[in-house]
């Protein structure tokens, strides 16, 4: 049985860290989208997406990240990515999403970048 997407959220001061674990495909990305949009609805403006446990992302998953970052930047916020595996990094580069998102090696570096 293929993995599903698990979502966990934590707060570090005014920065929210959302960690995706498993697969983000056309089916499971709906859960990721719901979680991200709810965070923005609740006034979160600084979001780090930790991809350490993310094993797969299709264009459906990339679309939800794009939709969230567009919404955040429109109000002065941002969404940053951290802990990309080699496979996910390859997809991000292939699609030019590395030009859209700021990418960090660790969650801590991504959180720190919001303080500058």
């Amino acid at each position, binding site marked *: *049985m*293929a993995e599903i997407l698990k979502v966990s959220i934590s707060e570090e001061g005014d920065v929210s860290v959302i960690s995706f674990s498993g*697969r983000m*495909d*056309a*089916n499971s990305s709906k859960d990721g989208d719901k979680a991200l949009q709810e965070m923005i609805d609740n006034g979160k403006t600084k979001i780090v997406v930790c991809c350490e446990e993310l094993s*797969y992302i*299709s*264009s*459906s998953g*990339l*679309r939800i990240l*794009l*939709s969230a*970052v*567009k919404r955040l*930047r429109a109000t002065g916020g941002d969404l940053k990515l951290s802990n990309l595996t080699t*496979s996910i990094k*390859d*997809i991000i580069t*292939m*699609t*030019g999403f590395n*030009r*859209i998102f700021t990418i960090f090696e660790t969650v801590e570096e991504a959180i720190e970048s919001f303080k500058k």
Partner: protein
Amino acid sequence: MSSTYTLATNASLKEISTIAEFITSSLTCSGVMEEIIFAIELAVDEITNNIMMYAYPAGEGTMKIMIDVSGTDISIEIRDQGKEFNPLLFPPPDISSNSDERKIGGLGIHMVRSIMDKVNYERRDGQNILKLNKSLSGTKP
């Protein structure tokens, strides 16, 4: 030596896991490297999602995925009997644009073209037939 694998399934989001497992198990059996399997799984996922959205916009239909691994060549044929739909007609996305300008459409087929060496579409006998080829001796990931 040549190995052939076939999956006939519903074109439904519920079958995404089944399709992913079919690709992984078939290519693993043929000794294909893990990173190539990952890329091909992604390409087939994008194509089958397009079939669900555009060939069968009104609901579910069926599709067939055939994989042939022969020496260093992987050939994949995906057929459906839905509405005529050629994914290769999607305009390519501008992957150099920033988030404000970035359009959502065309990303999936761009990924397929990036991963595979050859992608061909034909409409025949009421079927959409998409053929994907990947040479394991090539340089793409």
